[in-house]
């Protein structure tokens, strides 16, 4: 109950700040909350908007799956040996700190101007964090868990399924949450720079037309999606981490 009250207070605060900024900056820079919601309502009624949502969703789901499955698989392989983890961690972190957007032209050259470039760019953002989180989680399994499992004469399969997996789930979920939002970021950046479809493209084309209301409406739509998805994953995380 308290948390609900807190959440509503936060929401009211954000909307109030938004409204005040709107008064200061005016309609050319920032549409008011009410106008934005209204405009979003109108957009939600158009077919074109949903085509763009579908395009972004396709790219995002594909990129998120690559990040998650690829990241967990890579993380498990690298985390199984302490040496490989110690060697790969700084490499992964260095790779991740590259400003990826500067490489986007290369991605476009490799994948062309279509959905595959967006998927690749999204995965470039999400894969490494998931890999690092998974690798760390595997490394941080307390050795006494392995010893306990061994003294109970568990088979290697039972150790993996009943000890290693539940032990790493909370960490992997945290990595998934981070990877999820970064993948979304990657896909949207990809769409904004070079694309003919998708929500990112909608934002850039609206920018060209000076259509602030559309930019704000799409941003609101994406924020609501990202925040609810994050909350859902957090809930899952809490249940698993008990």
């Amino acid at each position, binding site marked *: 109950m308290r948390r609900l009250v807190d959440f509503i207070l936060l929401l009211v605060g954000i909307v109030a700040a938004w409204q005040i900024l709107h008064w200061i900056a005016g309609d050319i820079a920032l549409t008011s909350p009410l106008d934005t919601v209204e405009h979003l309502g109108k957009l939600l009624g158009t077919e074109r908007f949903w085509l763009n949502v579908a395009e972004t969703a396709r790219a995002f789901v594909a990129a998120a799956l690559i990040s998650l499955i690829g990241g967990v698989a890579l993380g498990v392989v690298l985390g199984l040996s302490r040496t490989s983890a110690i060697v790969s961690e700084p490499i992964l972190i260095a790779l991740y700190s590259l400003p990826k957007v500067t490489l986007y032209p290369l991605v476009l050259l490799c994948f062309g101007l279509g959905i595959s470039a967006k998927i690749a760019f999204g995965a470039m953002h999400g894969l490494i964090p998931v890999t690092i989180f998974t690798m760390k989680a595997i490394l941080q399994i307390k050795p006494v868990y392995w010893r306990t499992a061994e003294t*109970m004469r568990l088979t290697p399969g039972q150790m993996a399924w009943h000890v290693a997996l539940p032990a790493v789930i909370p960490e992997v979920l945290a990595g998934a949450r981070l990877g999820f939002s970064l993948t979304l970021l990657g896909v949207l950046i990809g769409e904004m720079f070079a694309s003919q479809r998708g929500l990112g493209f909608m934002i850039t084309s609206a920018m060209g037309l000076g259509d602030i209301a559309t930019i704000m409406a799409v941003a609101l739509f994406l924020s609501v999606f990202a925040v609810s998805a994050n909350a859902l994953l957090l809930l899952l995380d809490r249940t698993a981490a008990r």
Partner: protein
Amino acid sequence: MTAASDGAASGVEIAPRDVHAQLRGVTRVFPLASGAGLHALGPIDLDLYHGEFFAVVGPSGCGKSTLLDVLAGLSPPTDGTATFEDKPIDGVPDGVGVVFQEDASFPWLTVRDNVAFGLRRAGVDEAEIKKRVDYAIGFMGLRDFERAYPAQLSGGMRQRVCIARTLVLQPRLILLDEPFGALDQQTRLLMGDELLRLWRETGATVLLITHALDEAAMLSDRVGVMSARPGRFIDIVETHWPRDRDSRIVSDPGFGAVTARLWEKLRVESLKLMGTRP
């Protein structure tokens, strides 16, 4: 009650008792990166008799835990032979249960599921699991916490969970590696009583590794004192306590004599470790 009697320095041979686990000339050398080896343990000779409570004390780093690992089948001896129930130890033997110092309860399972863990993996049928888990949970005083998760329990309670988890597997030899090392003194004494109760009830052979002399003296039938690394037995002290003893034994006049003798031996070894001549 009599105080410590004389035991020979190694391989005490008193009345021909039934040997449950045996170490003969066991050494453990850990390979080092430099190519040399770290001689951690032995040579060790030890007969553990059926149903006895044996404690091992020794200065830190003397190889106590390595000794336990050899008996548990977690680490093969470099030299010598280790047998359990007349079979050479190769991998973890059936009938051996281990409790570690570190909290080994699984945080993702409730107390009840933690206790049932080993039985489930062994494919024991649910009715039998329920019976044994109910018993172990009642025995270790965990009845009110069955549905709790380890994070909600104190360190002492979590160690009870680990003991219960081992107990349900009905081990014939229970190995305990400083199980109360992380607990406060009062809790340790009470846990010691629990352990004695468990030992009497199950009739299992118990080997307890500890660094606390009073714990060793209070709980055991025999206490083996180990030297500084590489650890060997330099003395084995018999306590002659009655089987139905509990922590109140610490006020027995003989108790002081046992701890005094343990400390006399151990002091010399501990000093060696600190690089001081006795």
